[in-house]
């Protein structure tokens, strides 16, 4: 097992303590509720779109440090990205976490801040915690309001 500090890096602890963009967007049709059946964690992601560009992302709900930090960082990173760019980043993030793509320098660079979450690769049961917000965001982008699950 790796050092716990590699899983719970300071940035994760910080985002967990003070989640960014936490709250609801009232007047949007782009939202989805996501659910991790393994632990019962639930969160909702809200989006504002400007054309096909994401102008605002928020989330609310309760989850573990990994899921909260991942959601919080996601809201920062996706702001200003196009839907296609968001899809691409999620795809990359997901593939790295499940071990389909090697975490080399190039991938680390592409992931940016998200790279701090790659510690979960050593904890297979926690990968879903890191991807819950992202699955949910996909649902929100496609106006699939509920039933988003990590399963």
């Amino acid at each position, binding site marked *: 097992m790796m050092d*716990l500090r590699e899983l719970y890096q300071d940035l994760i602890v910080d985002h967990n303590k003070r989640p960014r963009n936490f709250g609801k967007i009232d007047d949007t049709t782009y939202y989805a509720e996501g659910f991790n059946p393994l*632990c019962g*964690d639930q969160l909702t992601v809200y989006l504002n779109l400007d054309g096909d560009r994401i102008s605002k992302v928020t989330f609310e709900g309760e989850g573990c*440090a990994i899921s*909260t930090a991942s959601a919080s960082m996601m809201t920062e990173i996706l702001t200003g990205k196009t839907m296609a760019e968001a899809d691409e980043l999620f795809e990359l993030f997901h593939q790295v976490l499940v071990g389909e793509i090697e975490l080399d320098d190039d991938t680390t660079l592409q992931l940016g801040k998200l790279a701090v979450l790659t510690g979960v690769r050593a904890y297979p049961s926690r990968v879903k915690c890191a991807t819950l917000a992202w699955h949910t965001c996909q649902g929100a982008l496609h106006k699939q309001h509920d039933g988003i699950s990590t399963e």
Partner: protein
Amino acid sequence: MNSTAVTDLNSDDQVAQWRADFPILKTQVNGHPLVYLDNGATTQKPQVVIDAVSHYYENTNSNIHRGVHQLSELATEAYENGREQVRRFIGAASVKEVVFTRGTTESINLVANSWGMANLKAGDEVLVTEMEHHSNIVPWQMVTERTGALLKVVPINDAGEISLDDVRGLISDRTKMVAISQLSNALGTINPVKEVIEMAHQAGALVLVDGAQAIAHIPVDMADLDCDFYAFSGHKIFGPTGTGVLYGKEALLEAMPPWQGGGDMIRIVRFEKSTWNDLPYKFEAGTPNIAGGIGLGVALDYVSGVSLEKIAAHETELLNYASRKLQELPGLKLIGTAKHRASIASFVLDQLHAHDLGTILDSEGIAIRAGHHCAMPVMQHYGVAATARASFAFYNTFSEVDRLMDGLNKAVEMFG
């Protein structure tokens, strides 16, 4: 030994002796001696059970109830001996009342499907409690939906207890079944099942007791309890996984239609009509978990040898010690503070999610459960998504509780 723990050398020696029966307890996890506090999920297996299962596969593996050769006869004898050991352990009147299943979940589904489909109709009611495990909710939900019967729920208070007045108020002549856990897996509450059974019987309702958590902690006697059905799993009482028991009163089982069809449950098969085997085989279609049934019998004899009274006494001291220590931790809230509790300490910590806690404790070699414990309505009652749960068995020690506390302090420090 921690000075605040109950320092009874004899009891320490006793626990050390018990621990020596369980080879896995010598395991190292992440560089630390294993502290196994997830007994509510499944218990560890003593060497005698492991040996019984190996012995079966090494020496007598064969199908049962049908072979004329020696191995089959030996296997049949060992498996049926396991059934007799179960009968003795739970005080059933006859082995006809002991149906082997895959576990508690299958036992409850058997009753819900066989008894429920034959007996429930629109207007009837099934009563469960708010603290039930999903496996004692969902089968009843499914059968009440199909029959038009109504599912009613006895609420819990904030300590995690039901009130007998509520039960009395909810039972009526429409109530056909009361399904209740004897010991809550999420809260540790011991329910007053005997009183509930009396009330239900007075109203003409049957009672199914979910004994999944209770069986390894509370002595039970079917004759004394007088429940109509009792369900438990072998793996929660030091037996193999994939084994379980449905106890049912003979007259009720006799009147119930089979649930699953197949080999072993039939007497004569004709395309026009088949007839059913005697009890308990009528409910045991297909080749069962033979090694498991044998292992379960051995596990129950092992527990009888240790004595459930001694087990309960040690676990009560352990739980009291753990509860006291846990409550000393700032920001910790126990979920489930019933007056009568056993084996389980469920809790939440401010600013620290149960899953993070589970991962941090794991890095210290401490196994707990983090999650909703298949009791989402309980989580909803307390307004939490998940709790951390330390669940004890008789082989746990006071110093293991101290290790848990050290781990919790480390977690708090990390996230504080």
